[in-house]
């Protein structure tokens, strides 16, 4: 691997100055001429038949331009399996169901008008737990499936099942077996910038929608389908993504509010903006699913894992998002974290009258890791083996294929384990702090690191355009939502092309301009777009060198003549001796084209911009624009066997913590946190660490305090006063991060994806540390002081909550 000039070095993010000065435009800041403001009327029941909607009072309110319901607009089916409608007509199935909407001249009037809409409901029996929903006589949330066929139960028709080897046989043969249940709560992504969009139509009835999304091109598909439902077949959608105030999975689906804005814009002929307030963001967006995992793992007497069985039940809520595919990611650690020969995994996803869920950063992996890594410590404990040694014994290595068919190319797993053990002073501290409530714990992760084929194409396109001044525009269909995509693509473009980063501009966020991209998810943004940039840069370099073959000597000679005029006696190199030059003789670095075999001769080089102008401003001139479409070399899962190498590379990581538990109050204090991640190659240390710090703190919130609580389907804490995410004073301990570079052959410059992994093993690492500190095992997240105290008291009174 050659030495890099820009890769691996910190470059401030190009979007930084705009964001630091308040100039970046988020959806909240955008205003279109004549724009109206939309507001949605949500259901007042968790499950009820809509008997009548009276919009007359709202319509009469001055300033109101449209009031729409499912009855006066075309039905638009939405959702991953199309079990949802933009506006509900027959019945509501959750509190956040959209029953009507208003467009008015200002937000205040729209809000007032919504209050004037009267809906008459007939209450229906509700189902709020997975157990109730699975009873044979349970009330059906959906009587009909999306194809209007009668349904018999509340099971979402998206089953996942994976089997390898023979779990039952392996269980019988195991020396130690541990079985348990692990629960995770609903989690709000909690983007600081709330969701919103502005929909408008041009005079040809084509839709232009500014919207906060991670999937501009899949959204475009969805909206085109909606246009067809509206009788606008063949009309097209242009999705424009403004600055995104955090996304964390919220932008992986299109949402009812977007379709409602579209309907309102079409009805009124004006741009219509819908932006959620914080209460709506909490109550009308989809949180990360709550899950219950039943897990059994076993090992032999040497501590080698023999089998793993997991049954995961997910509360889907009332409708189905892409979140129903999170088991495909849960399956990754279940099948492939550590070497486990016998695996059984299956999921049941269940409709309830709770708020419907979607994926959040980690895409199911945090829920799976919580069960696997907590249970693994229990297993190690029962086997009498140090959990660190236990993990080392079973750790994956490079060049192995897992039972799921995942081809692990590079693997820094053991390095990560060693790093965290070292940082935590594992040997000295583990098992030795119980008299003062202190303990250490660790947990591992496995995730896709080379994109993920969850859609027919996992590709991404880029267009590279060089202008007369040597500036480079690289256009990509990906989304910058804070992760540092533009900074990394800038460095990758500069590196691959041979220009300095300040010459590069990244253009993103408009489906009419940018080439197709499946979406910014699965930690794939940098991996795919940088690979595409390398391909496009190769093409551009080829063209630059073609120009050089034609013009290089002439330009050098002109420059020398000019110099000779200024400096009498100046003598340059003998150009005639160089002979004919071909494309392969050139290189391009730091904005100069030079001869490969004479890289250090300051006279034998031509500024890139000069070559470009020379080629442009002449008869039959030319400019350089190249494109590339990179689709990673991986496979779609076989739907029957759930086997297939779905990513081009995989990442490992280990996190650990030293904690102190206040045995009188149950409060867990983190004293130190250590993380080691196999990142392939560090592209930009600053943005990479930013991703990891941020993910770790999100993971600590998941571990310690975040829980979106509901009572009979209604939210109990829909605000930051009651739903607590961590603030700066809560992060008052050192976080040590080590990046293990394994230089993946498929990765751009060796890099693998890193957007999600940072929060995957955090919660079980804390739970394991709490166990080491005080000997109680918490099996449901979050690990609140209340749960810890209850467990401690139970143990004192002779209870069995001791792992």
């Amino acid at each position: 691997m050659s030495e890099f000039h820009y890769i691996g070095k910190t470059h401030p993010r190009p979007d930084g100055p705009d964001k630091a000065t308040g100039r970046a435009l988020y959806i909240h800041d955008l205003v279109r001429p004549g724009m109206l403001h939309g507001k949605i009327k949500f259901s007042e029941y968790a499950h009820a038949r809509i008997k009548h909607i009276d919009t007359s009072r709202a319509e009469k309110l001055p300033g109101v331009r449209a009031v729409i319901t499912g009855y006066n607009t075309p039905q638009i089916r939405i959702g991953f399996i199309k079990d949802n409608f933009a506006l509900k007509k027959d019945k509501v199935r959750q509190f956040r169901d959209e029953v009507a909407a208003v467009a008015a001249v200002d937000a205040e009037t729209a809000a007032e008008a919504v209050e004037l809409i009267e809906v008459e409901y007939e209450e229906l029996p509700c189902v709020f737990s997975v157990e109730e929903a699975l009873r044979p006589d349970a009330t059906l949330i959906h009587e009909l499936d999306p194809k209007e066929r009668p349904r018999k139960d509340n099971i979402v028709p998206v089953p996942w099942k994976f089997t390898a080897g023979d779990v039952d046989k392996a269980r019988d043969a195991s020396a130690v077996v541990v079985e348990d249940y692990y629960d995770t709560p609903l989690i709000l992504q909690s983007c600081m910038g709330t969701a919103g969009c502005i929909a408008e139509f041009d005079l040809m009835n084509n839709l232009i929608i500014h919207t906060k999304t991670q999937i501009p091109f899949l959204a475009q598909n969805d909206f085109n389908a909606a246009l067809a439902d509206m009788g606008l077949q063949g009309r097209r959608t242009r999705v424009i993504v403004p600055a995104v105030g955090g996304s964390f999975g919220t932008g992986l689906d299109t949402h009812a509010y977007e379709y409602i804005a579209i309907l309102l814009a079409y009805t009124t002929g004006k741009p219509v903006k819908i932006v959620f307030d914080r209460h709506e963001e909490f109550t009308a967006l989809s949180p990360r699913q709550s899950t219950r995992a039943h897990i059994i793992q076993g090992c032999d007497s040497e501590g080698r894992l023999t089998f793993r069985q997991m049954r995961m039940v997910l509360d889907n809520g009332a409708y189905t998002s892409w979140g129903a595919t999170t088991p495909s990611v849960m399956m990754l650690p279940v099948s492939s974290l550590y070497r486990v020969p016998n695996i059984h995994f299956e999921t049941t996803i269940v409709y309830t009258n709770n708020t419907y869920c979607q994926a959040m950063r980690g895409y199911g992996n945090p829920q799976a890791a919580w069960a696997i890594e907590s249970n693994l410590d229990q297993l190690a404990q029962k086997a009498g083996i140090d959990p660190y040694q236990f993990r080392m014994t079973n750790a994956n290595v490079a060049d192995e294929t897992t039972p799921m068919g995942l081809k692990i190319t590079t693997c820094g797993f053991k390095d990560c384990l060693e790093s965290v053990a070292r940082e935590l002073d594992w040997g000295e501290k583990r098992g030795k702090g119980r008299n003062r409530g202190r303990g250490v714990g660790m947990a591992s992760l496995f995730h896709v690191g080379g994109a993920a084929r969850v859609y027919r194409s996992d590709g991404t396109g880029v267009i590279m355009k060089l202008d007369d001044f040597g500036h480079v525009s690289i256009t990509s269909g990906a989304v910058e939502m804070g992760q540092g995509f533009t900074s990394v693509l800038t460095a990758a473009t500069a590196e691959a092309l041979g220009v300095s980063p300040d010459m590069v501009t990244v253009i993103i966020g408009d489906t009419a301009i940018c080439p197709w991209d499946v979406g910014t998810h699965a930690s794939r943004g940098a991996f795919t777009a940088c690979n595409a940039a390398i391909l496009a840069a190769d093409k551009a370099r080829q063209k630059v060198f073609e120009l050089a073959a034609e013009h290089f000597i002439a330009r050098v000679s002109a420059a020398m003549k000019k110099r000779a005029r200024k400096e009498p006696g100046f003598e340059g190199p003998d150009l005639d001796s160089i002979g004919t030059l071909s494309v392969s003789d050139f290189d391009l670095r730091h904005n100069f084209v030079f001869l490969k075999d004479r890289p250090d001769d300051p006279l034998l080089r031509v500024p890139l911009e000069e070559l470009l102008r020379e080629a442009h401003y002449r008869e039959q001139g030319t400019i350089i624009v190249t494109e590339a479409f990179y689709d990673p070399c991986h496979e779609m899962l076989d739907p029957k066997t759930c086997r297939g190498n779905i990513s081009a590379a995989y990442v490992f990581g280990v996190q650990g913590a030293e904690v102190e538990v206040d045995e009188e109050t149950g409060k867990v204090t983190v004293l130190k946190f250590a993380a080691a991640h196999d990142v392939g190659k560090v592209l930009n240390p600053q943005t990479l660490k930013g991703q990891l710090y941020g993910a770790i703190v999100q993971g600590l919130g998941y571990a310690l305090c975040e829980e979106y609580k509901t009572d009979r389907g209604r939210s109990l804490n829909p605000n930051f006063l009651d739903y607590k995410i961590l603030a700066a004073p809560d992060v008052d301990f050192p976080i040590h991060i080590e990046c293990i570079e394994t230089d993946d052959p498929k990765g751009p410059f060796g890099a693998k994806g890193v957007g999600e992994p940072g929060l995957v093993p955090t919660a079980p690492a804390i739970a394991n540390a709490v166990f080491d500190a005080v000997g109680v095992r918490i099996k449901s997240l979050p690990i609140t002081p209340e749960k810890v105290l209850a467990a401690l008291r139970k143990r004192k009174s002779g209870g069995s909550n001791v792992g």
Partner: protein
Amino acid sequence: MKKRIQFTVNGHAVAVKAESHQMLLEVLRDTLHLTGTKYGCGEGECGACTVLVDGASVDSCLYPAFEIEGRKVTTIEGLMGARNQLHTLQKSFVENGGIQCGYCTPGMIMSAKALLDETPHPGADEIRRGISGNLCRCTGYVQIIESIAKAAEKEQGNE
């Protein structure tokens, strides 16, 4: 009820018509088009709307418009110098990774400004407390704290 209120924004005297139930945040964003100040929660929990009123950091979402009469308001737009010269804090956030999605950034920087005005050389814990009213979901705060600490160092060097 409506009233004409006069106050100073970023050094400029302004007069606006405001409604009695409006908050400073709406006056800044909707009336004066100073959209650098963000709406985050409307309840004083997240700090995205932080501005300085007579030098003190406040949540503009809870600051009644009628109370701004005669006061001096500084927003994120007011920190920049002439010719796009970024304030030391803004520069430090850009250079030290204090920014990701950027939505909390203006409020965060305004809180940092209030902190440094009062405590020019804060320790890490003082910085944490100084920004305790500003939530960030992206960064985990680590590089924000570094950005503020380094800005303080730089200011010290400039003294």
